């Protein structure tokens, strides 16, 4: 052990003697480790962001819709669309579900005083706002009464408001949606980009009854029934219950498959978690390549160093160093170099994350495990790529090494 410390000192002296070269050697490792930390952290940051968006959809969310299948590259509906009968069945019988809203999506032309636009119009009930926990910037949501009477009112998002009204206050003003006048009663609070990158503020919300009955003639079914479980702990109960009620409503016999699907928020989080997780691994793997390149750099310099110091090695062997002493010395040199590179890389990585945060406002949490991976990998690279040159040094014949010119 004492011998190890002495050897450690010797290795350290050697590094110190070649300071600039040592620094250049570790540069590869520094960049590699920083790259690993930054890419993994960026992946984590993206995951976090997506998860935040999903939970922003409203906690306890359930979505019930007709089963679709991929056929010849297109989504094909496999059952009859979810409809009022299903909606009433859920509304009257479900105990684990507290709020329900149909969702009908249509595309229409909206014309305002200062502009017009083709836009997605969402037909929903008054409970939709609670289900998705969306807030208003000004005005109010439409009420149950306006849903039952198919009132020509709507709530719009900020992006659309800007296009149709510019700086005008939209509340109380009229817009024409496919030639039918609607009164704007509410302006949604800005939400930004959604989990899938869509603009959540480029939207019109109107009573679904209005869309069904006034906009495009008569539409029977709904695209989705949105529901909210009574609380987060009972999402699964709500899902099971909704499944049973939907089967009853669709008269599906025991043993037959469902012709609808239910997606909960938990599942959404899992799916996106998987996607971003794969992304993180992929990015990390790419970054690791730079670490390996850095390791080869260390091996390269160590090999040069062994050749350059052949005489020194011969002298050390002649005055009583064992092969193992030489091996340890060069191995320690390589490991110290790569660990130093690891430390500097960690610092650079964290600093890089901060800089990105400052510049883009995209918060990147520096994942602890990314530091461990980066650092551990650096140490591994040091051992793996340091061993070969170290062994070469240790196996030198002292007689030849002493006379090496």
């Amino acid at each position, binding site marked *: 052990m*004492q*011998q190890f410390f*002495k*050897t450690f*000192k*010797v290795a350290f*002296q050697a590094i110190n*003697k070649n300071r600039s070269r040592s620094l250049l050697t570790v540069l590869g490792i520094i960049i590699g480790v920083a790259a690993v930390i930054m890419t993994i952290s960026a992946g984590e940051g993206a995951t976090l962001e997506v998860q935040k968006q999903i939970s922003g959809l409203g906690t306890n969310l359930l979505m019930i819709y007709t089963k679709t299948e991929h056929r010849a590259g297109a989504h094909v509906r496999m059952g009859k669309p979810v409809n009022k009968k299903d909606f009433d069945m859920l509304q009257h019988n479900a105990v684990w579900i507290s709020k329900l809203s149909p969702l009908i999506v249509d595309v229409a032309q909206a014309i305002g005083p200062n502009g017009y636009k083709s836009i997605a119009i969402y037909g929903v009930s008054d409970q939709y706002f609670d289900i998705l926990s969306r807030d208003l910037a000004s005005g109010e949501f439409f009420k149950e009464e306006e849903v039952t009477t198919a009132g020509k009112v709507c709530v719009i998002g900020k992006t659309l408001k800007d296009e149709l009204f510019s700086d005008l206050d939209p509340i109380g003003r009229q817009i024409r949606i496919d030639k039918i006048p609607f009164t704007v009663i509410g302006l949604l609070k800005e939400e930004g980009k959604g989990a899938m990158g869509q603009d959540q503020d480029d939207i019109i919300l109107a009573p679904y009854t209005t869309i069904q009955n006034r906009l495009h003639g008569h539409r029977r079914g709904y695209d989705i029934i949105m529901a909210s479980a009574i609380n987060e702990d009972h999402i699964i109960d709500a899902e099971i219950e909704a499944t049973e009620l939907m089967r009853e409503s669709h008269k599906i016999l025991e043993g037959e498959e469902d012709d609808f699907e239910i997606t909960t928020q938990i599942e959404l989080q899992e799916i996106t978690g998987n996607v971003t997780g794969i992304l993180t691994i992929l990015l990390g793997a790419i970054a690791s390549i730079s670490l390996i390149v850095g390791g080869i750099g260390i091996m390269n310099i160590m090999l040069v160093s062994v050749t350059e110091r052949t*005489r*020194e090695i*011969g*002298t*050390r*062997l*002649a*005055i*009583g*160093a*064992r*092969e*193992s*002493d030489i091996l340890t010395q060069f191995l320690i040199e390589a490991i110290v170099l790569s660990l130093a590179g690891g430390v500097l890389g960690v610092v650079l990585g964290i600093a890089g994350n901060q800089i990105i945060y400052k510049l883009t406002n995209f918060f990147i949490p520096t994942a602890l495990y990314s530091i461990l991976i980066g650092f551990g990998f650096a140490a591994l690279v040091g051992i793996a790529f340091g061993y070969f040159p170290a062994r070469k040094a240790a196996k030198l014949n*002292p*007689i030849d090494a*002493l006379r090496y010119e």
Partner: protein
Amino acid sequence: MTAKKVIETKNLSRVFKNGDIEVYALTNVNISIEEGEFVAIMGASGSGKSTLLNILGCLDKPTSGDYYLDGIHVNKLNKNELAAVRNQKIGFIFQSYNLLSRTSAIENVELPLIYNRTGKFTNPKKLAEKALEQVGLKSRIYHKTNELSGGEQQRVAIARALVNDPALILSDEATGNLDSKTSIDVADLFVKLNNEGKTILMITHEHDIAQFAKRIIYLRDGSVLTDELIKNRSTKESALKELALTT
């Protein structure tokens, strides 16, 4: 009373195989050197000087014959034991000094102690200082090797060979890279160390330097040609006088 034998070789031979051809570098060399001796080994290139030095220095093993160093039968030792013998019994001095570059004199001198596993030397710094003082470099202790002259560098190397208090100091053409005047200084230093009781074996092809030794062995074609005591040993004064005459 017979003095302790530091070196004893019995029918030492070293054969190098080059394909099917066997080259005899040494054949039946019998040398015996006692404690306190100062021996010069001379011989033309190819006479086996270097091979002999490698074996005596425990860097190489004989093909046949026996070698005893300070009573240890070296033939039977493994690599690590040989390293330990080199570390504890031998002080090496090389033609091109072989010091660590950009390293202070004292760190260079401490080097053999780093590899000593006996725990005998508890204060390497003090020992290194003492050795540097012995070679007259007390004022240069913290100078880096590249800041020293050739003669000074060789003195550092000699201090390094002294620091572990070896049974034998082996010098391989120690004056080969030095000018005549400095060579005489180094040879004189050997005499001084020998007078302090060190056993010294030096290989040289410089006749005037060999004359500083007490005994001279000539090798030819891998065998001992002559082995005799020197009657008129050179001293620093006589050598300098001679140097003045020839230039």
